[in-house]
């Protein structure tokens, strides 16, 4: 394992650069409407209606099914040539009414635009007014929230699309009013396992809260009575109440900030943006922040949980992880959080890839500034990156990696270059059950570190590379 090299004496350099090609080879992210659909399915009694070609919906439903091994309901306006010429708003009207008639429990329909309908210039807000009148006439006893979500695919990525839909949902549905005493928690685009972990902390601290979105039931059971419970748990009432919360805890700068900023601007709900809680120190900061907002102390039980995690990490860090070079790719909040986690366990994240056109925002990200201050090894951060940036550094450059951390779309880079890989982020369709496991929090850090260790061990054994080290441990 360890190579006992003496580190060269030169100051470490952390570079932030952009992809230098115009085109993409192997994208890291999907487009904005895909992210908007992910936010939409987190709401209970909600079916997003995507205004565009059928592929914009069909493929995204498949993507979610691949990751979660579950089906999610998303509808399409099935845009065709005539709409491209004459406009497609009639298809929204028809889609809304068909959904309302056939799904009697439906309460929310985010109307998600795509590149085609943004280019055509369909008037979504005006159409929603027409639909609201039609709904009121036909269903006087029902309230269905129609949410305009503008997500042209030629801007941003699924990360910004997610943030945009979150913002539109609170903007359309949230209300002010009597303070609820509850905390809004915006975890960003995370797995059900992370949501469960966050809810566990809040319960241990006795903090009343709403999670936006509560995706815990994306991991849903096969039941004797065949009920299907695969849907978001965040209700219309939860979103309504977000405007009267004691505060918003934003765990993801790029995924939750637009929504929490809106809640502050509109309802003066204080917004607390913290570093995404990957690793020990970030989780510490999150718990301290929750304690500070709510006045609730951090209980002994969490001190113990922290200790269990540290105890496990300490078995791995300097024996197996130190000096190992890692590349991490995926959502920016996750990548930057995991980079800090890696440094806690002595892994060296030498290459970070974050994938969309928000370059100027990354330049101002304090977490990147912190990495510049703390990294004791050279690090390259590529924004607007594609996965070819990673692959060509390995196959044509001189990048030597001991580990790749990222989602399943980069699997062939690891497989064909014989590099151990740990799946994190979205989507992770080529490994079983990852959506159920936390990556955030103490337990997430522990489970991730143990997965990394076991992946490295299996690789040592499979390649007969010092597999005898584990002869005794």
């Amino acid at each position, binding site marked *: 394992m360890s190579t006992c090299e003496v580190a060269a004496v030169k100051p470490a350099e952390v570079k932030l650069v952009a992809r230098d090609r115009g085109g993409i080879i192997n994208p890291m992210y999907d487009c904005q409407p895909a992210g908007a659909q992910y936010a939409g399915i987190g709401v209970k009694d909600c079916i997003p209606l995507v205004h565009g070609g059928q*592929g*914009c919906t069909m493929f995204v439903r498949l993507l979610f099914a691949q990751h979660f091994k579950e089906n999610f309901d998303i509808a399409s306006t099935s845009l065709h040539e005539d709409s*491209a010429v004459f406009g497609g708003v009639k298809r*929204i009207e028809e*889609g809304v009414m068909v959904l309302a008639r056939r799904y009697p429990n439906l309460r929310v329909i985010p109307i998600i635009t795509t590149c085609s309908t943004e280019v055509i210039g369909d008037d979504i807000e005006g159409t929603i007014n027409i639909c609201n009148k039609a709904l009121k006439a036909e269903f006087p006893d029902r309230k269905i929230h129609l949410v305009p979500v503008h997500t042209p695919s030629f801007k941003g990525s699924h990360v910004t699309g997610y943030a945009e839909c979150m913002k539109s949902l609170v903007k359309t549905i949230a209300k002010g009013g009597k303070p609820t005493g509850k905390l809004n928690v915006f975890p960003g685009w995370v797995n059900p396992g992370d949501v469960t972990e966050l809810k566990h902390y809040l319960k241990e601290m006795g903090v009343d809260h709403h999670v936006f979105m509560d995706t815990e039931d994306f991991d849903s059971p*096969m039941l*004797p009575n065949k009920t299907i419970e695969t849907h978001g748990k965040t209700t219309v009432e939860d979103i309504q109440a977000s405007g009267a919360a004691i505060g918003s805890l934003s765990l993801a700068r790029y995924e939750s900030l637009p929504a929490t900023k809106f809640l502050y601007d509109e309802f003066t709900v204080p917004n607390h943006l913290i570093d995404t809680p990957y690793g020990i120190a970030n989780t510490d900061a999150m718990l301290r922040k929750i304690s500070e907002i709510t006045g609730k102390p951090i209980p002994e039980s969490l001190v113990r949980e922290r200790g269990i995690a540290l105890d496990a990490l300490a078995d791995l860090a300097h024996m197996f992880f130190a000096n190992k070079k890692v590349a991490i790719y995926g959502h920016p909040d996750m990548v930057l959080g995991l980079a800090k986690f890696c440094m806690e366990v002595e892994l060296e994240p030498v290459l970070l890839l974050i994938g969309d056109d928000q370059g100027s925002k990354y330049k101002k990200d304090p977490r990147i500034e912190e990495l510049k201050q703390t990294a004791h090894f050279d690090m390259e951060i590529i924004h607007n990156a594609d996965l070819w940036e990673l692959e060509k550094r390995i196959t044509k450059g001189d990048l030597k990696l001991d580990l790749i951390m990222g989602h399943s779309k980069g699997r062939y880079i690891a497989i064909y270059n014989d590099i151990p890989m740990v799946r994190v982020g979205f989507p992770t369709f080529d490994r079983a059950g990852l959506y159920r496991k936390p990556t955030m929090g103490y337990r997430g850090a522990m489970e991730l570190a143990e997965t990394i260790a076991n992946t490295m061990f299996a690789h040592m054994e499979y390649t007969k590379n010092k597999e005898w080290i584990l002869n005794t441990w």
Partner: protein
Amino acid sequence: MPMVLLECDKDIPERRKHIYLKAPNEDSREFLPIANAATIPGTLSERGCAFCGAKLVIGGVLKDTIQMIHGPLGCAYDTWHTKRYPTDNGHFNMKYVWSTDMKESHVVFGGEKRLEQSIHEAFNEMPEIKRMIVYTTCPTALIGDDIKAVVKKVMKERPDVDIFTVECPGFAGVSQSKGHHVLNIGWINEKVETLEKEITSPYTMNFIGDFNIQGDTQLLQTYWDRLGIQVIAHFTGNGTYDDLRCMHQAQLNVVNCARSSGYIANELKKRYGIPRLDIDSWGFNYMAEGIRKICAFFGIEDKGEALIADEYAKWKPKLDWYKERLKGTKMAIWTGGPRLWHWTKSVEDDLGIKVVAMSSKFGHEEDFEKVIARGQEGTYYIDDGNELEFFEIIDRVKPDVIFTGPRVGELVKKLHIPYVNGHAYHNGPYMGFEGFVNLARDTYNAVYNPLAHLAGIDIRNEIPAQLPERIREAA
């Protein structure tokens, strides 16, 4: 009452024209479901887009070709890691996808320069690759980028590359089917007869409409090798760009998937006089029949009979083992279109399975003519079925297994019904003799899965006295 209005469709009564229940003693030609018509918005249809029909289904299968998608990144991301079509050169087609990553400024000022830049970059980054297909998408079609002009310019600057263009945005047509058509016709118009290859056998054919799902093409290729038939081009399983340019050299076009690829076979017949022979490659009876027809065309019947006898000796006992255990199984097939008519009779004849419901995403009326002729009475034939209809049909026909995609598979799992991947297969290939044994095995493993039985038990109740009806045996 052969056309059926389901309860869930009472608010969209036009769906009645799309669902047919085959009844005894009637002329089914009078009751053909309407197909290849626009989907009703908001119905949660299964359909994809025309771009997907061109890129994901046909063009993207080629093993030596850059797939340059001119549009925002999503169209590339979504048509990547969604298929199982390996190749014999390390799966280049599944590893990579290319996008021009169109941005707002390109919408405003045009995306042609960006396309030109992206094409050069792609060839520069992978200098060993010399072939490319460029696709338009919804926004690049709407803004009117002239991709043919860009490609012409690049080909002039790079004489060693060849590029084909597919102008088929997602909103074209009503389903993926439109994309199949555009690619077929474009290819024959622009690329066939632009290259000649060496002829190495007195018997030559194109094998059309098979996309090497889990190795289908490669399995069938062993038959053609044994028969001494040279396959000029595979359209497009494990295929190469240049082979497809030589399609005019074949003596015969053998068509498996008539829906996605029948167009090019028809054009090859019209323009070059090459006869078209349609076969079914799934199932013992069908495969044997197909081989007999091909061999009859070339006058090599003896070779064909020897191959069939060999394969039957090797695989038929295994098939019969499964048939014994699968007969009476009720199957539903919810796939693209042609597999309905390829499979309904072959699973009935070869495995004793009854297909009780079938739904097609993009089949045309001629597909329904075929499937209704081949399918059974008491079976539902559905065009563009949607989610609520599926629930209701399941209630009516109670299938033991459903051949469909993974997402719908996850849905029916909650109803304790196992699925087998009807698009990408569970553990294929499924074509040919060996392949159909694989299909039988996967069906058996699905139907006899103990978990479906366990899922039905409520642990708060008494332990059920009755053992599961089906007891699994070792194959």
